[in-house]
């Protein structure tokens, strides 16, 4: 069952190997060796780090490397476009370093793929049954490498990969693989960053020129400005950042000049050479096209993270005549089990959602099921993280209880022997303020 869930990851790993073998046609043995070795090392490294350190450390390393690779891809894409205009760019003259590139590139790609695949397995608890998949995973990776090597032999040789398109496809496939887990997904945080960046820019801009008091800004103008704060801006902005590198690489290939054929007297000879160059150029577009599909699939998968999250149904609570809400420490739910417990308090026609959570440092925290930025769609809990349903931002559990950003808004409370005591009116006020401010942001307010 565990390995069935790995099938998409295995397919991605196979494609990755095919690409690497295609990218370094003279170095098949080195590519197979280093990528398979890297894969095994990635699994072992993840297992080791996850056992020795909190799980967020290896996850953080993988995410950072993925983010770094994406930034590198951006740089390479811009450089490729610059180079396609017949300008020499020494950094992209990698022919001399082909053996090194094959070794390092294959090893690094294998390392990342191994780490990502290992992350999909249930965390080991010391039992052999949970440990066994981690032993079998490198073997499966090696077996797939053997299959990929025999499959690669039948691929038409003219489907060559340029260094930039190879990098694009490898990064795209790793992003696709990692997008299966919300803890590794990059697209949702990227779109959130765009949304937040736009929001912060507009906010600071308005603040700096004191727009609210400005004579020429009529209230309806906020309707247009408010559009900038919407989820759609984050989504489409993220899409642009996500797809642009591979589109630039494809454009660079398209813009590459055709070879000079002026020295050939025969028109037929000239045309044959030009036709061959054009055909080769079209074939070289196949890998960026594949990368584009992988990027699209990764973005699509980001909307449906395969990791299940804890999403408890809110329990209805009432206040005492003195206006106090008491949540017992032990009762219908166990407050100190490390899981988020949601509650619903009704006052007239007002409904307030909040949750109580014991964070990893052992402190209870009470927060609104909403943040100061997004629409109050609430949160779900996954391993070591909360997930904002609206913007898909992940919030580490040990930062829950701190105000700001996409963190849930903390609520004052008293922790006594019998449980958690809340003041109903301040809870309602806090909810109203938060919801009003975020709604105004979304509907045109600042």
């Amino acid at each position, binding site marked *: 069952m565990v390995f069935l869930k790995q099938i998409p990851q295995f397919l991605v790993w196979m494609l990755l190997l095919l690409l690497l073998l295609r990218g370094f046609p003279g170095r098949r043995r080195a590519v197979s060796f280093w990528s398979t070795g890297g894969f095994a090392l990635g699994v072992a490294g993840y297992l080791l780090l996850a056992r020795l350190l909190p799980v967020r450390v290896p996850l953080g390393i993988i995410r950072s490397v993925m983010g770094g690779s994406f930034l590198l891809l951006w740089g390479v894409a811009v450089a490729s476009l610059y180079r396609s205009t017949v300008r020499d760019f020494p950094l992209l003259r990698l022919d001399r370093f082909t053996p090194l590139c094959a070794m390092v590139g294959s090893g690094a790609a294998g390392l990342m793929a191994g780490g990502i695949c290992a992350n999909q397995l249930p965390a080991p608890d010391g039992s052999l049954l949970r440990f066994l998949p981690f032993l079998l995973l490198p073997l499966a990776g090696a077996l797939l490498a053997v299959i990929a090597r025999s499959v690669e032999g039948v691929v038409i040789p003219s489907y060559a990969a340029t260094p930039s398109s190879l990098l694009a496809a490898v990064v795209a496939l790793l992003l696709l693989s990692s997008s299966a887990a919300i803890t590794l997904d990059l697209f949702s945080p990227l779109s959130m960053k765009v949304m937040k960046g736009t929001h912060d820019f507009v906010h600071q801009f308005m603040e700096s020129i004191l727009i609210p008091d400005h004579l020429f800004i009529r209230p309806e103008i906020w309707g247009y400005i408010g559009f900038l704060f919407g989820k759609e801006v984050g989504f489409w902005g993220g899409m642009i950042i996500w797809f642009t590198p591979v589109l630039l690489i494809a454009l660079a290939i398209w813009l590459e000049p055709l070879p000079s054929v002026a020295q050939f007297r*025969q*028109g*037929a*000879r000239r*045309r*044959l050479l*030009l*036709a*061959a160059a*054009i055909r080769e150029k079209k074939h070289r577009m196949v890998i960026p096209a594949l990368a584009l599909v992988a990027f699209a699939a990764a973005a699509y998968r980001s909307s449906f993270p395969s990791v299940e999250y804890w999403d408890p149904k809110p329990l209805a609570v009432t206040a005492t005549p003195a206006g106090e809400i008491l949540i017992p420490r032990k009762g219908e739910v166990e407050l100190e089990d490390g899981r988020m417990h949601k509650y619903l308090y009704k006052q007239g026609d007002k409904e307030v959602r909040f949750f109580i959570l014991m964070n990893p440092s052992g402190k209870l925290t009470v927060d609104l099921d909403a943040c100061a930025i997004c629409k109050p769609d609430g949160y779900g809990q996954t391993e070591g993280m909360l997930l904002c349903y609206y913007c898909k931002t992940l919030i580490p559990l040990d930062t829950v209880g701190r105000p700001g950003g996409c963190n849930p808004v903390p609520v004052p409370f008293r922790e006594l022997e019998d449980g958690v005591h809340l003041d109903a009116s301040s809870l309602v006020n806090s909810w109203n303020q938060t919801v009003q401010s975020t709604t105004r942001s979304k509907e045109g307010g600042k």
Partner: protein
Amino acid sequence: MASIIIEAAGLTKSYGEICALKPLDLSVPEGEWLSVMGHSGSGKSTLLNLVGGLDRPTAGTLKVGGEDLLGRDEDGLARFRREFVGIIFQQHHLVPYLTALENVMLAQYFHSLPDEAEARTALERVGLGRRLKNRPGELSGGEQQRVCIARAIINSPRLLLGDEPTGNLDGSSTTMVLELLRELRSQERFTVVMVTHNQEVADWGDRTIHMDDGLLVREERKVF
């Protein structure tokens, strides 16, 4: 001494029980104009089809341009026809709804890339500079055959095959077409293999082979 462009040994072609070409040995030097004469059913078109890569022999060996045609797969044969051979047919086989220029460009398209300027020059070389935009139906038989010649030479073939190219033409048009072929051959230095049943046409060649019932029965070399 010119290199050998066509080298056949024991070349045979059968269609079921009918043996269209009986074991034939033939050697054609590069740049030669070879005329192939014979009655209908003597095997001359069969020989042309084999040499042009349009058909495969039943037995024997056939080397064209130093390469064994039998060893080529379908793609290889198609590439050979595209890049090595130009063919002129008696019935022209021009696309009726394309202009003369477009018919020539079509051959360029299947070879590599269309190049209008080059196609225009080819038609000007065969004396059709003013009939570029005319469709085949608007051209005389001789003009249509000249379009065929332009189409056949546009991809600079090393071997030009003619299957009764003047069969439908009157005397003056025949002479015009043959003179044109001779002039182009001297410029482009391609080899000509032309099938005909007309002795006068055959006499334009450097050598004539006579075929009968699939056999090479006689060979005549022109004495200059």
